[in-house]
């Protein structure tokens, strides 16, 4: 990993008095940042979105978005990049620094084979042919890929997880001593996120300097030695990870995370900067979401009876596709009135496909869905109004599920008008009340969808489904576009909005706190099958951490200084 070009005592990156200004704006994007990334350690920068993390990550490499001016110093292995002409900076970076961006799959060249691109990148740090070949092999192995199996492939032939690891290999193959990781776990399911965290730690232990930009506090706790807190472009707090963040705060169920997450039990001291305290408080609130769940969850023996006569029941669902099998099935599941179920599992395991079958949006090749014992037609357009009422599905991309040019008030009222036969005014009034509970005021509903934010539309989609008073409400990643405050409010309000003794809830989510707060039962999907079922509280840590095997030697890593 270590390039032998610079003396080892020079830190891979030293940033001094770095500021960034966007053209035509007063407020600086970054102001007076001082930061060093020593070799063999992980330095994390945390902060809410918009605090300047990405700008800092680019600036560390002497780069910036179009129209952004950098001042100060960004010293990479002894060279101040900002003193160089922009055109000469790539050469100064070559073989010394590498970056892994937010959505790694998008930076892989779709038209080139993996091996060719890696060899080109290896040439940046290795002059001889044998050295390049060896570097490619080592980088792929370090990223957890089989070099021989992958070299001749195109990126689109790899799974999401493999693409992510390949992007990491692209960063490693240059032999860089500095790695900049920008929100490396965004969009990853817990299993992949966790694996990535371990790889990063291994790399740092091997001598690389890592700059980690993230808002994923558990990841930072697991991997970082030092933390800098960024707020409005300023470094407001810094220190060893354990001192700044404590050891996971008020995790209500420490066993739920992988064992080594319990590294320290030190609570953050009360004299930290308000921004740090706010980040920790938001994390604590989300984790404690469980506490607001009313004790009325219908898990008293009414669930897990596939032949249960009441409510929505799916039996033997199989979906076949010509290419790939997102849902192999067969899956059977019952949703008696009042039950709260969560579907968990890695991306691509068939959760969404199964949910769409329930709603009649995807046609299964086998199996049927029944409501109170009577069959529901497979396709939603064949269902009667009463049958459509039975299952309501809220899309993962629900912000895109509204007609562009109609005011939301009308669109939300349609459900109750068409499915329950209410008059238009009654339907509108009911939708308005439900929207109010979720914090959407009436003025907002008079607008057309293009004038609302993604999070607001996601809540509107929920209201639209709820006014059907369905027997089963399916929420597919409904919290993904919500900020922390809206998410808390939704977790708090949703249970109250379900019709007691009628509506069952099915949620699909990667977000463990949301699942714990809203669901009583959980079903774990993998490879298109439901492989495990049980009460949420009794699920083993495997489900949350996503680790395939919590091996016997899962002890803490050696303590690191800070």
């Amino acid at each position, binding site marked *: 990993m270590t390039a032998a070009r610079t003396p080892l005592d020079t830190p891979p990156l030293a940033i001094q008095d770095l500021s960034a200004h966007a053209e035509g704006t007063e407020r600086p994007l970054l102001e007076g940042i001082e930061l060093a990334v020593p070799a063999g350690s992980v330095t994390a920068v945390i902060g809410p979105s918009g605090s300047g993390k990405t700008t800092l990550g*680019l600036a560390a*490499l002497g*780069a910036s978005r179009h129209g952004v001016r950098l001042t100060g110093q960004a010293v990479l292995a002894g060279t101040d990049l900002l003193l160089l002409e922009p*055109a000469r900076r*790539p*050469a*100064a*970076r*070559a*073989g*010394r*620094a*590498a*970056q892994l*961006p937010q*959505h790694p799959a*998008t*930076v*892989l*060249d*779709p*038209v*080139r084979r993996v091996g060719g*691109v890696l060899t*080109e*990148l290896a040439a*940046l740090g290795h002059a001889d042919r044998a050295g390049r070949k060896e570097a490619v092999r080592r980088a792929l192995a370090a990223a957890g890929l089989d070099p021989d199996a992958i070299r001749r492939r*195109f*990126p*689109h032939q790899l799974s999401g997880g493999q693409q992510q690891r390949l992007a990491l290999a*692209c*960063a490693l193959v*240059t032999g*860089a001593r500095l790695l900049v990781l920008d929100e490396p776990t965004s969009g990853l399911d817990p299993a992949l996120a966790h694996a990535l965290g371990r790889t990063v730690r291994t790399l740092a232990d091997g001598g690389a300097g890592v700059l980690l930009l993230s808002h994923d506090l558990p990841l930072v706790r697991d991997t970082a030695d030092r933390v800098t807190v960024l707020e409005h472009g300023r470094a407001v707090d810094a220190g060893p990870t354990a001192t700044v963040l404590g050891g996971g705060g008020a995790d209500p169920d420490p066993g739920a995370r992988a064992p080594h997450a319990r590294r320290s039990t030190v609570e953050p001291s009360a004299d930290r900067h308000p921004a740090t305290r706010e980040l920790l408080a938001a994390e604590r609130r989300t984790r404690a979401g469980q506490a607001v769940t009313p004790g009325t969850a219908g898990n008293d023996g009414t669930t897990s009876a596939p032949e249960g006569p009441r409510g929505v029941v799916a039996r033997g669902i199989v979906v076949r596709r010509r290419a790939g099998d997102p849902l192999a099935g067969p899956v059977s599941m019952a949703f008696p009135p009042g039950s709260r179920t969560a579907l968990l599992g890695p991306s691509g395991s068939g959760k969404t496909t199964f949910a769409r079958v329930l709603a009649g949006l995807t046609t299964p090749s086998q199996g049927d869905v029944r409501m109170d014992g009577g069959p529901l037609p497979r396709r939603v357009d064949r269902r009667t109004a009463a049958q459509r009422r039975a299952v309501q599905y809220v899309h993962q991309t629900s912000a895109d599920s509204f007609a562009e040019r109609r005011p939301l008030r009308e669109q939300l009222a349609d459900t109750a008008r068409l499915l329950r036969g209410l008059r238009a005014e009654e339907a509108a009034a009911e939708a308005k009340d439900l929207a109010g509970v979720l914090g959407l005021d009436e003025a907002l509903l008079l607008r057309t969808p293009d004038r609302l934010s993604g999070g607001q539309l996601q809540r509107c989609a929920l209201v639209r489904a709820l006014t059907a008073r369905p027997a089963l409400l399916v929420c597919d990643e409904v919290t993904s576009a919500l900020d922390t405050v809206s998410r808390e409010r939704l977790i708090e309000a949703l249970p109250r909005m379900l019709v007691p003794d009628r509506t069952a809830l099915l949620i699909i989510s990667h977000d463990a706190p949301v699942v714990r707060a809203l669901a009583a039962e959980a079903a774990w999907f993998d490879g298109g099958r439901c492989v495990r079922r049980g009460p949420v509280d009794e699920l083993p840590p495997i489900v949350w951490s996503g680790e395939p095997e919590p091996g016997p030697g899962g002890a803490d890593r050696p303590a690191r200084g800070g």
Partner: protein
Amino acid sequence: MRGYVLRRSLLAVLQCLMVLVAVFALGSLLPGDTADVLRGEHGTPAQVAALRTQLGLDEPAWARFWHWLGGLCAGDLGNSLMTGTPVAEDLGRRIGVTALLGVPALVLVTALAPLLGTVSGLREGSRLDRALNSAAVLLHAVPEFVLGLLLVAAVSLAAGLLPATAVGMDTAALLAQPAVLVLPVSVLTARHLCDLTRQVRVGVAAGRHGTVATHLRLLGMRERTVVLRHVLPGALGPAVQQYARCVEGMLGGAVLVEAVFGLRGLGSGFVEAVQNRDLPQVQAYALLFAGVTVAVNLAADLAAYRLAPRREVTA
């Protein structure tokens, strides 16, 4: 890869079959046949009937299709109804003239479009970029016959520079006097060169600012390597399909250009055959033109799939 090649080739075979059936069916659907045309209004019904038997026009349709297909396989395209000479002979005489038009035009487009497209994609907003963009907008829809006549009026008539027509010249005469070909080749090239250049330019400009190129620069890759190894290959996939459209468009363009400049190539031969309703000739031309189109599209789709395997292209 193999699955796509098979599926795409099957489609091409189906297209060829469809063309064969359609081209033949056309002949049997004629309201009057060649015998009527040959005899004109003066022939008695008896004469027309005799001619019909002589030409084999009174056989059932399937039998004639079978004869025709058998002949095709043996390389026999039939005899022209007007002149009685073999159609293949006529095609052979004309193909040289069309080649003198089409080959230089294709070479120009193939060589210049990637070059100009890359340069203007790398220098967005430069003078070259703006000029090419304006030319593409101007030339995109103007039919070749209009462009040809306007050029003749400007260059030959007003400026007195180049010959305006090549009426009656055969391949040898054209080769002896290449100045005659300058205007026809320019007209045939201009529109497609602009279209293809624009396609390459869009791909290069998008790729250059794309996440892949940006990231490679962040990793320290040299700009030259980024452009030549990543941006250009990404832009060529869609351009190859546009290239197939160019070849296809040039077939139609050749018909118009030959008509304007009085060249006796395949295009004007086709037009004459259509006007004479000389069925064997029309069938031969239609098969030739359709066959080239199907083949070019097949080659382009396979090449595009190889260049950009993620975009599975349907023909």
